């Protein structure tokens, strides 16, 4: 199982701060698609972090990993 954390507007739109994806392994791009099918549609400009490090679409995500969707940041 892959745990996915949601923040900011993505969290509000989904109405929750995390979701689980049942899969042994998949690429970040496949994970994005799986999330889109679960209703996380606004992924433009959203970065993906795997285990607290930014990851590219071709990188692999494994069961047990924690993924975070990172919308454009606005700290400071």
């Amino acid at each position, binding site marked *: 199982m892959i745990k996915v*954390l949601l*923040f*900011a*507007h993505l969290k*509000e*739109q989904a109405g929750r701060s995390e979701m689980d994806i049942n899969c042994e392994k998949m690429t970040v791009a496949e994970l994005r698609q799986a999330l889109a099918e679960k209703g996380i549609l*606004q992924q433009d*400009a959203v970065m993906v*972090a795997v285990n*607290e*490090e*930014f990851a590219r679409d071709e990188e692999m995500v494994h069961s047990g990993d924690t993924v*975070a969707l*990172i*919308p*454009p*940041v*606005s*700290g*400071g």
Partner: protein
Amino acid sequence: MFEIVKEPVDVSKLIQAVADRNAGAIVTFIGTVREMTKGKKTLYLEYEAYEPMARKKLEQIGAEIRQQFPEAKTAIVHRTGRLGISDIAVAIAVSAPHRDEAYRANRYAIERIKEMVPIWKKEHWENGEMWVGNQKETVFYESGAPEAFER
């Protein structure tokens, strides 16, 4: 000292954290909550962070500064939660032997925070609220039913 905190930021602690016998300068940057932005009145802000990653990224900024300015020492604290007008959202202190490095390193730190540290700001106005989507503050994400922001 690289922290995400929920309490008010104590700038003197950051200054103490970077104080050094070989420092000839300590530059501090204090980011505060502004009331008026392009004619719109902010009531308060809400900051949310992906805390463990945000802390790591602040540490990474400290490491990047050490590479460029080996003698500089950096401390960064960002606050989350609800902040009122004039509250401190972020404070950065950098010490270095000379003021030029201290100023440049401090500027570098705030620009990097705005680029890649997972922290988000939600604006609350009198007539709506929106997550701010980028640093030019030209992209907003609707939540609830706020009016469209003038772009």
